[in-house]
């Protein structure tokens, strides 16, 4: 038995077993769930060798599964985040209904993502892609809120993407006679011009939907915020990366090999930039943490898309690094929101305040993730951003860099809003009862947060496999040229040496804290946040002084022209228009038997009239 098959069989049987055990015992179900996630992951990381493939054929089409260096990078995200978020999910979803179903879909999504990474041919790629889509769709509608709106929107867009991809796949099949991805890449430069344009466009629509590229992003926010947070961590952290995965293959494998590729790159890069800016601005405007993080995910994916579109080795390094880091910190943040939701029952910034002393570990994890998200050194997010900027500057995208910088600076706004909204501010009596989330929820968050820290100082740990993957895509070795274990270089040889920076920061911190605090800290005592200088007034217990409504109103007022246009209404009116047309079309079935008889006669006459046309 091939280990590759075994992994998938384990996933599948584990999913079914979890579902069925859920009817018997809750504990058994949880154990089965965790086991199903952990065992294949362990098998994958210990038993699977790169380059090992299994071949088989379906309907006469040759298919092949096997892991490559490149997909191995994404396997880290999928399995790492999958296992951690799975552990989190067990605690976070405790007591919810229908958990067997949840876990079933969860495992299925993980399996599908692994399947995508394993697929060396387009058909299994598509099959797993669709499994991923519908399993995630079932998660989006799991909570039962707004399913007709949000769920259907997600699925429609996914379907548009998937079918665009399917079209590209069948065209590829008809052109090359093979479904292998490698064959497509190999034969692509010899295609005729139209196909050279059509196939990447279709594939990019498919991947763009999953990676929430700007005109195709409208599903993302609702879906991210509606699915259970335990799953959204995977949804935003890992699942959206599948779009990135595919996009990289398209951009590096196909687009870069044709002369028109330059325009593709520019267009995609600008779409990524618009995604980043739009996502950021809308994230700033949100009052709900889930939506904010969802928009933020869209924005972050925008950066990654920019990197892919630019396509220089440094940009690719940046994108992949950001993809991994985004999985980590956004996963943590969604988990934190989930923890807060579980403990308080709401995720609205205007309602929850001052949790820092109640949920310190959640805060710590969120803080580190936010610092990583904002791209502030010494945490991991910085590495990706640095590389991205350097690559954008180095590849002469002058205006692009400004746009990116704008959105990344504006990102500080929502970063702060997240931390302030939940954890800081007045400690209200309403939330006095709130406790820290269970350890099973906190530990995965903290692990991921620490991970961002480690990768921020030793990016080489991630860049190493990324480098291997990039070489597979045809890039030259980047180690030593763009990075070492904890040193980064840009195109012009400028460096950022990370370790001394970290040490300096730590040293100053320690010194400062010792300096300020040792002498006086014990004399300092905690006073409640009601004891503030409020013009001599003494706030009552029930008075909520926290500033949380209209948080960034001045800023939003000044960027209002940028945000005046939303794309959703256009889609909505398009959808309504289509529905109206369809509604009109079905009136052809008048319900009158005589009309139907008339149709028969008219049809006969039409055929008789056009018979020459029809038979030539």
């Amino acid at each position: 038995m091939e280990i590759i098959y075994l992994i998938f069989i384990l996933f599948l049987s584990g999913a079914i077993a979890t579902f069925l055990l859920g009817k018997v015992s809750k504990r058994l179900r949880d154990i089965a769930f965790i086991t199903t996630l952990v065992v294949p992951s362990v098998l994958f990381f210990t038993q699977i060798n790169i380059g090992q493939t299994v071949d088989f054929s379906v309907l006469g089409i040759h298919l092949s599964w096997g892991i490559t260096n490149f997909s191995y990078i994404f396997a880290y995200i999928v399995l790492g985040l999958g296992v951690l978020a799975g552990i989190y999910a067990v605690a976070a979803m405790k007591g919810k209904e229908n958990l067997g179903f949840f876990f079933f879909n969860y495992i299925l999504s993980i399996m599908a993502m692994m399947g995508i990474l394993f697929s060396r041919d387009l058909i299994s790629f598509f099959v797993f892609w669709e499994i991923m889509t519908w399993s995630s769709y079932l998660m989006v509608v799991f909570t039962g809120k707004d399913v007709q709106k949000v769920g259907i929107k997600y699925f429609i867009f996914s379907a548009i993407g998937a079918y665009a991809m399917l079209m590209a796949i069948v065209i590829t099949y008809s052109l090359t006679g093979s479904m292998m991805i490698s064959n497509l890449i190999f034969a692509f430069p010899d295609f005729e011009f139209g196909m050279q344009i059509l196939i990447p466009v279709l594939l990019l629509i498919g991947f763009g939907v999953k990676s929430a590229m700007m005109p195709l992003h409208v599903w993302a926010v609702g879906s991210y915020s509606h699915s259970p947070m335990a799953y959204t961590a995977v949804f935003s952290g890992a699942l959206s990366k599948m779009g990135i995965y595919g996009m990289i293959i398209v951009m590096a494998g196909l687009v870069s090999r044709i002369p028109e590729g330059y325009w593709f790159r520019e267009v995609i890069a600008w779409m990524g930039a618009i995604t980043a800016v739009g996502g950021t601005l809308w994230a700033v405007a949100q009052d709900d943490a889930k939506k904010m993080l969802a928009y933020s995910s869209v924005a972050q994916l925008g950066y990654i898309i920019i990197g892919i579109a630019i396509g220089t080795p440094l940009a690719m390094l940046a994108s992949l690094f950001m993809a991994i880091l985004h999985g980590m910190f956004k996963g943590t943040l969604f988990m934190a929101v989930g923890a807060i939701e579980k403990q308080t029952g709401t995720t609205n910034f205007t309602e929850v305040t001052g949790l820092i002393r109640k949920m310190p570990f959640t805060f710590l994890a969120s803080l580190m993730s936010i610092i990583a998200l904002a791209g502030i050194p010494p945490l991991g997010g910085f590495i990706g951003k640095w590389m991205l900027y350097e690559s954008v500057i180095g590849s002469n995208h002058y205006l692009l860099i400004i746009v990116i910088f704008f959105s990344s600076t504006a990102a500080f706004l929502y970063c702060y809003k997240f931390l302030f909204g939940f954890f800081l501010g007045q400690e209200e009596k309403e939330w006095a009862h709130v406790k820290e989330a269970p350890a099973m929820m906190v530990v995965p968050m903290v692990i991921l947060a620490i991970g961002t820290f480690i990768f921020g100082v030793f990016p080489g740990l991630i860049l190493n496999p990324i480098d291997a993957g990039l070489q597979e895509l045809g890039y030259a070795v980047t180690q030593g040229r763009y990075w070492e274990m904890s040193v980064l270089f840009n195109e012009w040889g400028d460096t950022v040496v990370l370790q001394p920076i970290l040490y300096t920061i730590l040293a100053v911190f320690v010194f400062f804290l010792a300096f300020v605090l040792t002498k006086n800290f014990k004399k300092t005592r905690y006073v409640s946040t009601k004891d503030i200088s409020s013009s001599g007034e003494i706030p009552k217990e029930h008075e909520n002084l926290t500033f949380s409504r209209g948080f960034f109103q001045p800023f939003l007022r000044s960027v209002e022209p940028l945000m005046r246009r939303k794309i959703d209404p256009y889609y909505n009116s398009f959808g309504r228009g289509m529905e109206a047309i369809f509604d009109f079309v079905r009136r052809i079935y008048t319900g009158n038997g005589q009309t139907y008889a008339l149709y028969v006669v008219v049809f006969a006459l039409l055929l008789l009239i056009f018979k020459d046309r029809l038979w030539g």
Partner: protein
Amino acid sequence: MVGSPVLLIAIPLLAAFLIPLLGIFWKELVRIIPGLVLGYLTILSASLYIDVLNTGTIVETIAGWRAPWGINLVFSPLTGFLATLMTFIGFIIWLYSYRFKRNVEFEAAKKYFIFLMLLVAGSIGIVITGDIFNQFVFIEIVGISAYALTAFYTGRNSAEAAFKYLIMGSLSASALLIAIILIYSQLGTLNMAEIAANIHNMPPQYRVTAMIFFIIGIGVEAEIFPLNGWAPDAYTEAPGPVGSAFAGIVVKAGIYAMVRMMFTLFDISGPMQILIIIGMITLVVAETSALRQVQLKRMLAYSSIGQMGLVLVAFGMGTKAGVFAALFLMLNHAIIKPLLFFSGSYLVFNSKEKNISEMSGLGKLMPFTAAFFALGSFAIVGLPPFAGFWSKLSVLTAAANDGLLLIIAIVLLVSIVEIVYYFRVINRIYFFKFDKATSVVPHKPRVNALIAMAILAILILVIGFYPDSVSEILNRASEDLLNTPDYIKNVLSTGQSLTY
């Protein structure tokens, strides 16, 4: 060998005749006999089919009159495949409707099973007969039994649906008769093989006119676009299993007749624009009409029509890949649509007005039925790894091989519409709150119904996970359809010339 192909038609006809008589002795026989008959037919057709696959086409002559004079039955890889499929679906329908809510009473059950037997017999007859007039007769048998089954419920609008069906059916039967007259007047024969052999001797004007009348005559059963006005009504108003019989058996026979006529009778090789155009229009109109449906069964009906349109498109490509895809689609549709109708009719039972909006939260109350419905929906919209995906994929690859990019695009766009309306229902079933005001207390499906659905569901999963399990059969069938000379040879070689 357990029997000969003629039994496939004779036995159900006999059973239809015997059912009321036997019912006098023991009322339960009315329900048992059809099961035995259909079970036997399934085994018979399956074993015949295995023989056919191993040894070659069986051509059976009736009453010793050899082709081209007598009526002959052709049990080839294609017709055998369809006949087996039909008997199997018929058996599943029997299993499901063994104690179907409405026919628990004796009288109702009697009528139901008589007409079901006739329907199955007629459909099998359409498929395996080798004579166009005989085909006409079988079409009429199917028609009459279908009108009767449509009007099965006395309380609803079923008579209206049946009447519309009847008007269109009679008109089209007339057209079919005209076509037969035209061919007979020109070629002097009714045997398909001989017509096929001589079709090029026919003046083109006559040929094309005959073909048009043929299309109209068969189009009503095959649910092509302007001729399918009856279909939504009939599907909606007929009992659930009858709907699935229409979708799984009757329509397949209609499509077969259409395709046999195009491919063999008129020997059109290469792409058939007319099939593609009609199929596309059917697909688009039906799927778009389905989007805003209020009633579940009506939605399923439109979906069924749309699928048939897609089948026609696939056939219209005229290539082996296209025919393969079309047959695959037919197979999947024959499995999936009954599942949807089976589970859907239990969902419909539990709503007062049969509306989709009244099915909120039934997933909690009837987990298995809802799960089967969801599975069926997933499969029919072509989500992998379920059966529907592979057929859709084969259609698309076939189209891509012919360079029909526009058709691929339209098919995929229409698929999105399909997804929307199916998922609306699934969402409502699973993720909405149960509402006592609109839904009545749920009738749980009986065990036999669950088994029937489970069998179909397992088939969906088997084909979904291992599509190669059927690809060999389909390959043989599609080769058979495309190979007109062999057909002619097989049929005509059995007959020596009669000497007087």
